[in-house]
């Protein structure tokens, strides 16, 4: 495997190079992660880590520069009555909003992630997609979230999908590339596993579950399969790839379960915003409410946290 990755970089892996996934086994493993009890100090630590890993996201047709500025403000100052909390990892927006977000975030250290490649469907010619990436990078995006062409993938044109990711990676330049598999449209865990391998071999810095526009979005079984793919890829090549579950993770408790899964699948090295992200919008508020609860002992209400 290692030799192959070195010599024939530009040839897509074959589907049979990805191992079959035992769905029942995956479900059982996930059920175990969900039974861990994380309390008190460990809980606070986990909640803070979750906050620092959030890609605060707004991807709607109704987005305006004003809304993006507001989101950036929130990204920098999550909740003033909790002074010791970290800021989020990044703000995730459409390419048209990148400049606005970049300006609003200034030197805060928060990254700007931009979706590109005709998000969310990916139904555009390759040239258009590459242009979009270059545009977003030119405007200052630090990270690019691209979607794979699910249509082509399901048709079996794996090489085309692969080549497109390679070209996108090149177009990104220094920007990090996150590859969205849109697992809700892939159908089976076997395909998720194979698509993960395809994306990683093509040069993805991160692999990401979903756009958030399709149900089901991120689920724990799908994320586990992708984490296992990352682990095996790391053993084969020595290259670390990041993971970003996105969509449908809106509760702190669920986010902590994801962290448990991350810790027990990939280990300590991945437990940082550099290697794991949550794509979410409402998750931040729930985490803040839990932190406030830990501090005051009183259950909180959404009324006292900023709307987003």
């Amino acid at each position: 495997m290692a030799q192959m990755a070195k010599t024939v970089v530009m040839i897509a892996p074959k589907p049979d190079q990805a191992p079959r996934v035992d769905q029942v086994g995956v479900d059982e493993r996930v059920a175990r992660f969900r039974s861990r009890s994380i309390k008190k100090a460990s809980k606070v630590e986990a909640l803070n880590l979750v906050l620092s890993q959030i890609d605060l996201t707004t991807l709607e047709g109704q987005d305006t520069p004003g809304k993006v500025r507001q989101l950036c403000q929130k990204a920098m100052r999550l909740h003033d009555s909790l002074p010791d909390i970290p800021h989020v990892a990044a703000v995730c927006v459409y390419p048209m909003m990148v400049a606005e977000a970049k300006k609003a975030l200034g030197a805060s250290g928060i990254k700007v992630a931009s979706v590109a490649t005709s998000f969310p469907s990916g139904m555009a010619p390759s040239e258009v997609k590459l242009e979009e990436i270059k545009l977003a990078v030119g405007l200052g995006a630090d990270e690019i979230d691209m979607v794979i062409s699910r249509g082509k993938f399901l048709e079996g044109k794996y090489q085309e999908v692969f080549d497109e990711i390679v070209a996108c990676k090149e177009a990104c330049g220094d920007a990090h590339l996150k590859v969205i598999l849109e697992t809700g449209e892939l159908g089976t865990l076997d395909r998720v596993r194979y698509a993960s391998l395809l994306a990683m071999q093509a040069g993805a810095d991160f692999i990401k579950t979903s756009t958030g526009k399709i149900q089901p979005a991120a689920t724990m079984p799908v994320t586990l399969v992708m984490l296992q793919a990352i682990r095996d890829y790391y053993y084969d090549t020595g290259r670390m790839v990041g993971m970003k579950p996105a969509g449908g993770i809106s509760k702190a408790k669920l986010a902590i379960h994801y962290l448990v899964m991350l810790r027990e699948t990939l280990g300590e090295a991945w437990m940082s915003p550099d290697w794991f992200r949550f794509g979410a919008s409402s998750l931040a508020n729930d985490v803040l409410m839990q932190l406030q609860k830990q501090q005051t002992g009183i259950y909180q209400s959404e009324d006292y946290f900023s709307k987003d």
Partner: protein
Amino acid sequence: MDKTVKAEGRSIDSAAPRETQSAAKSASRGRAKPPATTRLGVAKTYKLYINGKFPRTESGRYFTVVDSKGNIAANMCRASRKDFREAVLAARSAFSGWADASAYLRGQILYRVAEMLEARAEQFVTELKLMGVDKRTASREVTAAIDCLVYYAGWTDKYQQVFSAVNPVASSHFNFSILEPVGVVSVLTGQNSALLGFVEAIAPVIAGGNTAIALAPEQNPLCAISFAEVLHSSDVPAGVINILSGYRKELAEQFSSHMDINAIIANSNDASEIKIIQEQAANNIKRVIIRTKPIAPDPYQIIDVQETKTTWHPIGG
């Protein structure tokens, strides 16, 4: 029949000993014939009522309620603060739907609750008698509870007209005040009247479009939990009323401190408890309504948990 059998249920009939003999005989012939037994009563498990479901407490704890003769009447769920938190979530998500339901519909549903209670009156009389209330008082209490529901069913589409106002102001504005439900209300019901007190406490809350989380009377909770079954079969949307059983001393603080509760109603004479409630409620300045003695149904109890919204509408030139 001795005491233990009575506590577990009644025996079917006096034929039991004879059947035992014949069972022994058939056993000696080597033929399997089901051994005759005294039938055990199928006692009801009293559980919580949260979001239209009957869960056990997440804590797995229980406490024992004894009847007037000192026998075990039931093992009740001893709800924890997490059960309460779940109930608040349910009440919060049910709130907008219930507040936006037409007054007429809320009235119909309350009337439906009364209908279902009437149909099951006998069960409530039995439960009250078990706890030491005499038959006549028990029937009177059940009837009064039904009437109370009908009373507030009638008020749902009338309190707005009576308590809203057009206010005279000295500028060219049309100024009017209308009522809106405060939101999620927690209710600590009185200890004495197991059914009537409970119904009287929650009916005006939901008549006005609020959602409620109520704690059943600690040592007298049977009727309140059975009342959940009535609600469950009465078109009351899930989450509008949630009922917990447990230790009041443990839960009163939670009922009053939770930031997502907008008002608390407590039937209480206990000065130290009232102090805790008032202090905890100050966290989010929730409305505190302390009732030191039972009061007969009246529309002011609906208004207790309503906000007044006043609008200044410019007119003329």
